């Protein structure tokens, strides 16, 4: 029995069998490379300089000094105090950020619009929502380092400026992402409640929140982890905590102290990770 099918070829000759998405795929791959090239040139991306002996030696010396980490009782006591201060700064900053982010995300989320239940959103609410989104954009586009430098001038050196800096930047991030999460979830439960006459806040607590609680929680815990890391950076401009300790150790090229501090950071990030996993399991 003769086989009527031709042998499979890489490029079928009949046009009907050619993958129509092929040309677009090649185009976008090449376009991506073409856009990447100027970025590589601009950033002087030359990873091989890392391996030149002149650069390698001091770096290895510094990293070599990491071992062993400093573990004496006096330093550990100091470390524990500063760790506690860092965690407190991140937590207080995030709490303040939540106080600002939750109302702002509720104001900006489109699912809770009564007028868009039937057709297009009305003019005033639509302008208000867009305005709140712009406010969130402004809040999060100013880096926390800049906010911290501003607040250090206002309230002086210390954790307060760090807390305020985290609060402002993070409220912008949390508010935007909360609104995005709530808009990307299934809105059926929420819109049905509003169609049956509930208020918007009632629809939020009985529809939108239970629908998205897991995602919102896990994102919040992830942001807490980020706040701990950014409080380290803020320490460098005098906001206190582990960052300030690290700054002075770095300035004295004390590798073993830096190593101990980094170990504490890893432990904190690990802790946040476990907490997020636990919470997500509880809410699953």
């Amino acid at each position, binding site marked *: 029995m003769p086989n009527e099918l031709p042998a499979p070829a890489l490029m079928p000759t009949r046009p009907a069998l050619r993958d129509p998405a092929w040309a677009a795929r090649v185009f976008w791959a090449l376009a991506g490379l073409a856009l990447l090239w100027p970025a590589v040139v601009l950033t002087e991306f030359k990873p091989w300089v890392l391996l030149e002996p002149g650069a390698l030696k001091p770096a290895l010396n510094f990293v070599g000094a990491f071992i062993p980490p400093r573990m004496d009782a006096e330093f550990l006591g100091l470390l524990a105090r500063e760790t506690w201060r860092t965690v407190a700064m991140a937590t207080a900053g995030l709490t303040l950020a939540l106080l600002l982010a939750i109302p702002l995300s509720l104001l900006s989320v489109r699912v809770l619009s009564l007028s868009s239940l*039937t057709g297009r959103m009305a003019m005033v609410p639509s302008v208000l929502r867009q305005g709140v989104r712009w406010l969130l954009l402004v809040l999060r586009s100013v880096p926390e380092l800049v906010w911290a430098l501003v607040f250090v001038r206002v309230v002086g050196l210390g954790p307060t400026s760090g807390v305020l800096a985290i609060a402002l930047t993070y409220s912008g991030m949390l508010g935007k992402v909360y609104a995005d999460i709530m808009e*990307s979830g299934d809105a*059926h439960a929420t*819109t049905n409640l509003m169609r*049956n*006459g*509930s208020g918007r806040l009632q629809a939020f*607590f009985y529809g939108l929140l239970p629908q998205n609680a897991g995602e919102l929680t896990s994102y919040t815990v992830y942001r807490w982890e980020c706040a701990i890391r950014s409080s380290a950076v803020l320490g460098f401009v005098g906001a206190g905590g582990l960052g300030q300790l690290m700054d002075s150790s770095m300035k004295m090229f004390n590798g073993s102290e830096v190593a101990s501090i980094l170990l504490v950071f890893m432990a904190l990030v690990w802790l946040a990770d476990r907490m997020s996993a636990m919470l997500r399991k509880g809410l699953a």
Partner: protein
Amino acid sequence: MKIILHGISGQHPSAKPGAVPALREQNLTVRAGEQLAVIGPSGAGKTTLLHLLACALKPSAGRLLLDDQDPWQLSRRELQELRGALFLAPQVPPLPPRQRVVTAVLAGRLPHESLWASLRSLFYPTDIALAERALAGFDVSDKLFDRVDRLSGGERQRVGLARALVSQASLILVDEPLSALDPTRSQHAIETLTRAAQERGATLVATLHHVEMALAHFPRIVGLRDGQVAFDLPAAEVTPQHLQALYAQHLHELSGLASTEADALPTDPAPVVMHCR
């Protein structure tokens, strides 16, 4: 609640502008406390009709009067207040998966209670007995404290219907309430619904695929076909000829084991969900 539809047309907001409306220039009057079943083949405009009555959809032409009041003349606040007197139970029960059944049922009461009362009820459900009674009407009272995502499709649908009993609406609109239920459960569910509506004098409008169920339990039947009312008769006067004509070319749906099409409305593709940020 009394309903008057006057030359009303309606189509889904995402329908193409030039498309033929799902419901075209129809007149209908429903007295307060009347019970009415809407039957007809898939795509006849049954869901559109319910959405128009629920003020979930603005008519593209014509007028809707609920208790001699045009809801689309009201301010947004007044319209929302009026919506508290309407109850729409969509075919797919609108229940968040992580919510408990008791909370989901008591959510039917939200329009009639203050924000503060509804928050307190989240902390500790304020009227567990009420939710239990409503669920018992649909044989799901044993699921009172279960989570919605632990329920089967049929149980979810009945929990969605139990919400209607808890609400104090004077117009109850149910879309395909029996699509996921077996015959015995269907029978009981429809009896519970009609009795509850009767007890509180609420108007009940249900769309049904199941023609025998409609004829057995509803005094008035409206046949819809291609967006138009084909007949509007007391149940006793609906003849097999009426049904044959209504379901012509859709006869397989008349068998009772109708395919229950989900609300497959063309919607815009949802944006990609970012799971890790």
